[in-house]
């Protein structure tokens, strides 16, 4: 395993984790832009733009892009989050040049008006699709409540109103500002010819103009303090189950507490074998009960997700909070710590074997921190987490403290 990095004169970072004997090559553009970089008038523009990137350039139609990816046998796709927009393709090594060239050209899309109008219809269908699915918007509503006043409050997809109102010119301007070379990382993993990667990047991206993007983090005073508990609800009379999302404060992406926070979430709320699992899921009282830690550049949170019979949702939420309070009071055991460490280590090793999984770890880490972490580094971090540090996290980030909670479902028998 070898790591390489080169920065082009215009600021574009080219990085690669090269694995000898790998059977495939994964490449991706990691654009440092997402929902948090939008204004109310641009709500949903990052994700909409991600779709438009596949609709073609001035000399390449959208159909031609789709045909080329299929012709090279690529598993190609893209996703948008609060902080990142990522375009990726996994190919056989002999297709590296084709894949990188195509992705590179796509980063300068035509953003044609007629494509924009057709794709708007697709985005609106995507919004409706998620709105019809569990947790029926409870996740977005909880994020909005928890992060009120902070850029991370905005949902990635936008709303039917914001997308309908979005003009194509605003998207063109957003693209010019955010898709600048000094705001983008080109990453590759697996069987990578690094010299060829840099050469392709130079040829296709060398003339992109840097923009010196504005800082993305906000002053600490605008951070959510979770000082006021919030409970909201969304009514879906036809739903079979009630869905609850609960968010409380957690460490951000630069805080040393973030690794023990993730380990703590495994102990308390992993999908199997955790305290919530044995208390609520194994007994068949809940369909799902989990705890996860999410971190961003300047904020973080713990998210509890619960689905169960509507008549039980309040009592089960109370039991979950009691479980958190008990952990804070009694601590966790060395056996729980050991089991969670082994679980995480197993996940790191298995994910590390596939270049298409590694691409996201390597690319996002560089986009967020400008650093590289190998699989061995990740394993060392997991191994180094101490019981004391996990107890410190329980103390500093009270899981049973103030939180935003949103319920969605039939509400039968609840006071929501």
């Amino acid at each position: 395993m070898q790591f390489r990095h080169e920065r082009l004169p215009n600021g574009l970072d080219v990085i690669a984790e090269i694995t000898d004997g790998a059977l495939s090559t994964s490449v991706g553009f990691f654009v440092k832009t997402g929902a948090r970089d939008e204004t109310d008038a641009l709500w949903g523009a990052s994700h909409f733009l991600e779709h438009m990137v596949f609709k073609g350039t001035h000399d390449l139609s959208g159909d031609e892009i789709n045909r080329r990816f299929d012709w090279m046998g690529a598993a190609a796709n893209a996703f948008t989050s609060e902080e990142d927009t990522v375009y990726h393709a996994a190919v056989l090594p002999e297709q590296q040049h084709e894949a990188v060239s195509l992705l590179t050209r796509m980063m300068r899309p035509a953003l044609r008006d007629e494509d924009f109008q057709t794709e708007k219809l697709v985005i609106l269908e995507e919004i409706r699709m998620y709105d019809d699915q569990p947790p029926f918007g409870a996740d977005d509503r909880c994020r909005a409540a928890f992060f009120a006043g902070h850029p991370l409050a905005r949902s990635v997809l936008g709303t039917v109103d914001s997308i309908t109102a979005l003009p194509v010119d605003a998207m063109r301007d957003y693209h010019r500002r955010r898709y600048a070379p000094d705001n983008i990382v080109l990453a590759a993993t697996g069987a990578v010819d690094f010299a060829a990667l840099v050469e392709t990047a130079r040829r296709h991206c060398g003339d992109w103009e840097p923009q010196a993007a504005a800082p993305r983090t906000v002053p600490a005073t605008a951070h959510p303090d979770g000082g006021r508990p919030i409970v909201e609800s969304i009514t879906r009379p036809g739903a079979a189950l009630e869905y609850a999302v609960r968010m409380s404060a957690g460490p951000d992406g630069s805080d040393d507490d973030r690794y023990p926070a993730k380990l703590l979430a495994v102990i308390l709320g992993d999908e199997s074998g955790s305290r919530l699992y044995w208390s609520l899921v194994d007994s068949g009282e809940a369909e799902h009960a989990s705890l996860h830690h999410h971190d961003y550049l300047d904020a973080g949170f713990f998210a509890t997700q619960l689905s169960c019979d509507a008549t039980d949702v309040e009592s089960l939420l109370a039991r979950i909070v009691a479980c958190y309070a008990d952990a804070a009071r009694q601590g966790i055991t060395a056996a729980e710590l050991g089991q969670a460490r082994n679980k995480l280590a197993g996940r790191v090793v298995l994910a590390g074997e596939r270049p298409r999984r590694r691409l996201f770890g390597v690319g996002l880490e560089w986009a967020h921190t400008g650093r590289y972490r190998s699989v061995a580094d990740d394993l060392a971090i997991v191994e180094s987490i101490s019981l004391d540090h996990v107890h410190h996290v329980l103390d500093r980030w009270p899981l049973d403290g103030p939180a935003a909670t949103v319920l969605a479902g039939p509400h039968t028998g609840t006071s929501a």
Partner: protein
Amino acid sequence: MKQSLFSVTLDNGIVLLGEDLPGLESVAIAFHTPAGAVHDGPGRCGLATLSGEMMLRGAGDRSSREIVESLEGAGIQWSQAVSTSHASFAGAMVARQLPEALPIYADILRRPRLEADQLESARQMVLQNLAGTEDDPAHRAMSALRQLHYPAPWGMPSEGISTQVEELDLTAIRGFVAAHVRPAGTIIAIAGRIDWPDFVRRITALVGDWQAGPAPTVQAGPRGPRFRHVSHDAQQTHIALAWSAPPYRSDDSYEATAALAILGGGSSARLFTEVRERRGLCYSVSAGYQTLRDHAAAVCYSGTSAARAQETLDVMVAEIGRLPGTIQSEELDRVKARAKSGLVMQQESSAARAGAIARQWYHLGAVRTLADELARYDRLTVSTIEAWLAAHPVRDLSVVSLGREPLEVPDAVSA
């Protein structure tokens, strides 16, 4: 590409399959027992699923909790699933953990406790999962489609029917496990960093003396009606279509797979291009090939706003009808390229390969080499696919719509 494939059949009928994947540190193992939902029996839909859940809740010397803690404490990513044909127990792990894992899985298969004190929790868990699937409209549409397309019991929902799960008792579960969790028909597949002789020795010591009675049979029932509307109060209407295709073991299954990939298998496929890219009618639309051992299906799916659902269905049906006589060699080239890179990249995942070799043995009674699979794709030509399409016109289209209003279903698919 050089491949190291192994297989051996034990005296009691258990098939052991292995693939060495150099370069990986992990190993994945899957135990597929022939205790699938096809054996549920009338009025007992969900029995296989509930039995599979009960098998995990205590086996040999370990309690339910000790099983999970032993697996997870060793860093094993475990899973359990019941399909139409099999109850499967699987795990992926760092290779050195395998000797620790094998006895746990052997106990789950051979010595499940099936105790009364776990029954209500297990039942509630199955019922919770069923309620969860009620809230997943795409899942509901596809489940309804299987019931229309396949003859009973192959089309029945393996996750169960809640009113029937409510009635199942411990006697039924114990009887089901005794009759169907059996060595003959069980496939144990392993892939990754493996030591084949060591594995065969260890697993033979654990399951080599396992014996069971005669093989059960399945009585085929009737198929459902051709069309069904499922009333569902939501913004989108979901459309699911199926028609007959040859099962995987048929010589022409690759022609069917390729024709369906051209119709709806990639982002340059016809459905994606015509329904989504050209008209903006929906977010998701696709077509593909699904196979059981003796039955298979061509399947199409889309979900879109109620007001645009009829047009979406009409365009989908028109594209199905337009397929014969219009296949282009560039389209076939793209299907071959996607198949090739998919097969090669499968070699990077021990779990994917353990799944693939087991699936092939179940369908073919043999494991195909990658070279053989690639050659089968290479041999496809526009004329072999056109000949297959001409010989297999779409005559028995099953259609499910799930949403507020029923759709108008075409009488037939024609060019």
